[in-house]
């Protein structure tokens, strides 16, 4: 806008740099968790995720030598690779936690009793001895090595597809889906009819009703927890999917009605009046004209409600989750993992990303509608 008078602002670079910094700051935490979900627990525990993106020199945890003994000319040897992969460059190694960098790569070290150990630069080792090792504990090797980035999908396969994993998210994923879909669809329908009545039908008390809905928009749902739980228990719903669907429907309605009414009021009056003159009933006008035209607003609200029900913890805690744990949803499962697996970041990060992935996909695919809904919902 500053170019209006043909003068390029000197601030342009400052703007680019500050924006880049801001975006980096906002993205950084999420990227951290995302990267961590592809690392093994050892990697996460020994280095920050940011250092995993490039080759890094670090001290590895001790690796105990194991493998098949081969006898050649009375010499018993075990050989193999310490890391089980290529690309690692050993800088120093040792067999003792007090002196983990005692030897250089390629050196052969006498371990006593005639045993000799060699560790080469690429991690290959050879342990040789004049007699069989028997049941004796084999030496541990400490290495300091340059390690290229390494990522794994094992965390995801353990969290999603391992049936026996008690930390698994598969069940919780389907439970969340079961909560979310009906809780998104049903309020839309109920709200659409109500919004049409509030937008295009004339009746006494309409203004009062709209004001009441604006008021209900901000009523904290915390107030509803106990009275409704009591009500659900009294009428026999108890803690169940039905209860949580009803609760989400009730809590989502004010926003739904408000958004849809605001949108429907803006539809061209001519179309609706022409239809009326042509003898269409209100029911026909609603289903044949207003509903199709309101698609953008319906989509906006659907996204809101989807994100809200998918991400919700409180309503599920109160109206759905019982002690059996059969109906656990993802948010609850994650909170539980934070308690029991607080240090196991590979589990936590993966579980969190499983639950974040779906809303993020919806967000990026339907961002246009989300923005439109936000603007309609709050800017007057």
């Amino acid at each position: 806008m500053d170019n209006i008078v043909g003068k390029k602002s000197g601030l342009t670079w400052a703007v680019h740099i500050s924006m880049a910094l801001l975006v980096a700051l906002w993205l950084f935490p999420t990227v951290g968790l995302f990267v961590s979900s592809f690392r093994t627990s050892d990697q996460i525990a020994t280095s920050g995720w940011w250092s995993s993106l490039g080759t890094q020199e670090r001290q590895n945890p001790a690796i105990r030598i194991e493998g098949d003994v081969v006898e050649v000319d009375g010499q018993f040897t075990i050989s193999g690779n310490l890391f089980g992969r290529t690309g690692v460059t050993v800088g120093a190694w040792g067999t003792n936690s007090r002196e983990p960098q005692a030897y250089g790569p390629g050196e052969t070290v006498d371990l006593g009793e005639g045993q000799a150990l060699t560790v080469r630069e690429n991690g290959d080792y050879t342990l040789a001895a004049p007699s069989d090792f028997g049941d004796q504990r084999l030496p541990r090797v400490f290495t300091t090595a340059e390690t290229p980035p390494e990522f794994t999908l094992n965390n995801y396969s353990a969290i999603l597809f391992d049936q026996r994993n008690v930390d698994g998210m598969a069940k919780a994923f389907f439970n969340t889906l079961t909560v979310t879909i009906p809780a998104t669809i049903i309020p839309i329908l109920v709200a659409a009819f109500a919004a049409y009545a509030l937008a295009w039908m004339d009746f006494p008390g309409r203004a009062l009703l709209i004001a009441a809905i604006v008021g209900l928009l901000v009523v904290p749902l915390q107030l509803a927890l106990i009275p409704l739980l009591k009500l659900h228990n009294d009428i026999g719903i108890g803690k169940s999917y039905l209860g949580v669907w009803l609760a989400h429907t009730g809590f989502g309605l004010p926003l739904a009605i408000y958004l849809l009414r605001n949108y429907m009021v803006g539809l061209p009056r001519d179309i609706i009046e022409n239809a009326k003159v042509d003898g269409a009933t209100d029911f026909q006008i609603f289903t044949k004209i207003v509903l199709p035209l309101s698609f953008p607003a319906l989509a906006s609200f659907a996204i809101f409600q989807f994100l809200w029900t998918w991400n919700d913890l409180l309503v599920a805690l109160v109206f759905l989750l019982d002690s059996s744990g059969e109906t656990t949803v993802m948010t609850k499962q994650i909170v539980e993992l934070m308690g029991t697996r607080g240090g196991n970041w590979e589990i936590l990060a993966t579980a969190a990303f499983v639950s974040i992935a779906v809303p993020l996909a919806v967000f990026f695919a339907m961002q246009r509608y989300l923005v439109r809904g936000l603007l309609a919902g709050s800017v007057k």
Partner: protein
Amino acid sequence: MHPALQGLITIVVGVGGCIAYYYFSNLFLDKVLFPAKGAMAGRNINRANMVRPWLFLMPALVALGLYLAYPVFATIHLSLTQRVAGGGFEFVGFENYVKMSGEPKFWEALTNNLFWLIVVPAASTAFGLLAAQLSDRIKWGNVAKSLIFMPMAISFVGAAVIWKLVYDTRPAGQEQIGVMNAVWLSFDEGSIWSFLFLKLVPILLVAGFAVAIALMTWALAKPVVQRNGPVSGWRTAAAVLVGAGAVWLIYKSIFGILGIATASLPYGEPQTWLTMPFWNNFFLMAVLVWIQTGFAMVILSAALRGVPEDTIEAAIVDGANPFQIFFQIKVPQIMGTIVVVWTTITIVVLKVFDIVYAMTNGQWETQVLANYMYDKLFRANDWGVGSAAAMVIMLLVTPILVWNVYNARKEMR
């Protein structure tokens, strides 16, 4: 029955039931109750049209009444009663409130909530405004916006995990895997960077906050102090109240600046950020600011684009610099939107539960009202005090509720 199947049936029954209800009730109205034929045709049509809106509204009104309006009154009632052994409730008057006000945890929650109410809306709106203004001036602005907006889609629980990794602590001597500690340990005592980032920047931030409060209060209080124009009694009272709050905040800020300037920081030791009393609240707030900034940005960006071009052109012709254009031309014109954003975030803050529940569960002096209430309701099983805490939240929301309704009514006229 498998829950997924149950869900499918619910969708079919729910949606089908709704459609059937709307269709058949309309049919019944038109064909049976008030048929548009015969001698009474005209009167019947009128009557049918009077009833029809209520047919359309009925399910929504029942749901709203049952799930939002009724609980308000039921909670008021519950907060005045107490469960008696063996079932049933007895009326105890304000005893629950008295009991609650005797608990230090409640006051801790209330003070923390007040800090949340000041910091989160202010920081989110400020960052949102900054991001909106910057992104409107560059080519890749839309990509930048969508990345800053992204945390909106992440659940509070997911965000809690993300930020717990940021705040993670390893014992001294091990490599830190949390960014905060890694950055913290890179500062040395006496180095220029430490002075810059750990002393100067915080001092400037707090000072900026104090100045902003002072300016805002002055703008509010000016008409009252100078006595020009009609000044009503309640407006004077409001100005005095706001002024007192502002003086307290400025007083606190000055002490904060002195504190930062004189504090000796434990350089070289990894910190457990979430157990650091008082400051841990701000680490939790950062999570919500991170989420809400995108919301503020989207709305303020739309408002900034709606600022009439000719006002800006006129300012440029008059020789205003970009900062003057922003602060003196654009911001005053979008003040209404800023207020809307601020109040919307305020409501989110009042209900904040998941973040505290997942990250600290109110330990280490991070309790907030919503989590305190949850504690009372479902862990202590004290419905009376829990409901009283819920009423406090409702009370804090009420001014915004009234204001919103007032504005909505004004607009409809």
